[in-house]
């Protein structure tokens, strides 16, 4: 655990009387894929929202690429290099798939009002680059054929892919995926897995929330388990699945021989 891309410690978040996260630690090594699992209500999405600046944490230290970052504004976190998808897909429904990805380029481009109104050469060059890059990313996630379709009309699996494409367009160092396989059938999951592996090969680090234990165990290099807002286990997938605390969190008791999930 030497080269950490994301290193957060002691994160706490309280909603009124509910301690959603207490003293959570999460380490994501560069170039790897880390799984974040836990039963429903464990605080996985809350942690995601804290990391990406959507919720302001009560406490915690945040290091991205060795440098402290303060997750206080969502757009600054995106600019710093963390992109995310959402558990319940949040696309720009009436825009085309291509336009959705083009919006993802916003944070890495700079043309303003004057450039747009005057159509300056710089703006036109940038606009062309945005379009080409967006198309290339759609190609990469495998839905280039849907580029001109309205996002709302895409199939469920394609919408998930489009969300990943849009996140990739921001050139993230860390791609945070909130249950990307939710609602997918076995074939779709298989091809999603292929996509995530190709994203890793591009050098993008992935943080993955997922309910599908098989997918997490098969894909992730390390796994962190949350339960009731606390980290109860961290380690290699094979070790974590045998951890008594994890089994208890998922099943309620620790009967012998129940670890064959």
């Amino acid at each position: 655990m030497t080269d950490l891309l994301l290193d957060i410690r002691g994160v706490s978040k309280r909603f009124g009387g509910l301690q959603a996260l207490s003293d959570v630690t999460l380490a994501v090594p560069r170039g790897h894929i880390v799984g974040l699992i836990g039963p429903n209500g464990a605080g996985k999405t809350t942690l995601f929202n804290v990391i990406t600046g959507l919720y302001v944490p009560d406490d915690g230290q945040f290091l991205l690429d060795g440098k402290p970052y303060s997750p206080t504004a969502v757009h600054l976190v995106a600019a710093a290099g963390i992109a995310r998808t959402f558990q319940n897909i949040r696309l720009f429904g009436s825009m085309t798939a291509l336009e959705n990805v083009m919006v993802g380029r916003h944070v890495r481009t700079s043309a303003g009002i004057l450039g747009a109104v005057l159509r300056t050469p710089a703006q036109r060059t940038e606009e062309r680059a945005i379009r080409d890059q967006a198309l290339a990313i759609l190609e990469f996630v495998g839905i280039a054929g849907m580029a001109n379709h309205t996002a709302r009309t895409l199939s469920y699996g394609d919408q998930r892919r489009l969300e990943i494409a849009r996140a990739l367009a921001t050139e993230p160092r860390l791609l945070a995926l909130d249950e990307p396989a939710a609602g997918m059938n076995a074939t779709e999951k298989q091809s999603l897995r292929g996509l995530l592996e190709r994203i890793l090969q591009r050098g993008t680090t992935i943080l993955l929330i997922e309910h599908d234990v098989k997918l997490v165990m098969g894909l992730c290099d390390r796994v962190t388990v949350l339960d009731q807002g606390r980290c109860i286990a961290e380690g290699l997938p094979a070790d974590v699945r045998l951890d008594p605390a994890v089994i208890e969190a998922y099943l309620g008791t620790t009967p012998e021989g129940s670890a064959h999930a």
Partner: protein
Amino acid sequence: MPEGATPGHWRRALGIGLIAIALVALPFVAGLAGNSWVRILDFALLYIMLALGLNIVVGYAGLLDLGYIAFYAVGAYLYALLSSPHLIEQFEWIAQALPNGMHAGIWLILPLGAGLAAAFGILLGAPTLKLRGDYLAIVTLGFGEIIRIFLNNLNAPANLTNGPQGISNIDSVSLFGLNLGKKIVLGSPETGSLEISSVTMYYFLFLALTLLLLVVSVRLQDSRIGRAWVAIREDEIAARAMGINTRNVKLLAFALGASFGGISGALFAAFQGFVSPESFTLNESIVIVAMVVLGGMGHIPGVILGAVLLYAIPETLRHVARPVQESLFGAELIPAEALRMLLFGLSMMLIMLVRPAGLWPAAQRQGS
């Protein structure tokens, strides 16, 4: 644009040419029936500018603004104050500073009006950044009313706006030495002369500015900022997660939309020669919102269609309701004004029931 390189191109050029000829011929044709019809065209253009401006706020960024007419008022009063004797009559020191009278020209006032309205737009936008939908509508409605009530009451302690009486004797537009307020006669009586009325000249000025604002609208729509606006409209949280600084981008929408209102307001004041607070009521704001929504939010051709229909239909009815009824029934059964409101309301209901996305919404690009 790979598809249809030659035939599509020609058809497009032909279409633009025909539209251009029609737009140029329009005031002369309408002028045959009387200058009041050209006046209706002029106002239709003003409303198109307003609708295009509000379309940026409501159509693109999805921020429901029910006080948009306030920016029109800002532009109109700016022109009125800087191009009428009012301030000179009220303030001794201004009269001394400007012995030749207060005559700021259109070239100065248009950018100034756009800028001032944009500043007011930011003034409205800044406190309402976290509001959406109906909450935002209520605040903007209040803002529109505040501006109107200020204009209505700023005749004391210092008489700045002349209160409910309004400001009159406003200079008409003067372009390159040509006073648009007076008709011009081309040719001599012997050879046959062509008379160009004041309303016709204003028509061409308004048309030029409408086209300018149209180009600005179209270019913004297909730009990085335009996409950010639509992204905010579609899903604000996702837009922020994409790194869009929603605060700045929303303020830009408010400011730009407002500047369109300021420009058309200044033109309105010059054209009318008179402004008073009663031109800037909530009802006007609602009509402009209706133009954008009924036409097709965020879709420029739809918005223009909405503005033309919602302005022209009531105006036409005003002129023809009585003669038509008299020829049909021998008497005017329903007063023109009542009929106007009745049909106006009815058509709005019908459009919303039959075409909920507006008369001419953006095409849903689907299917291969």
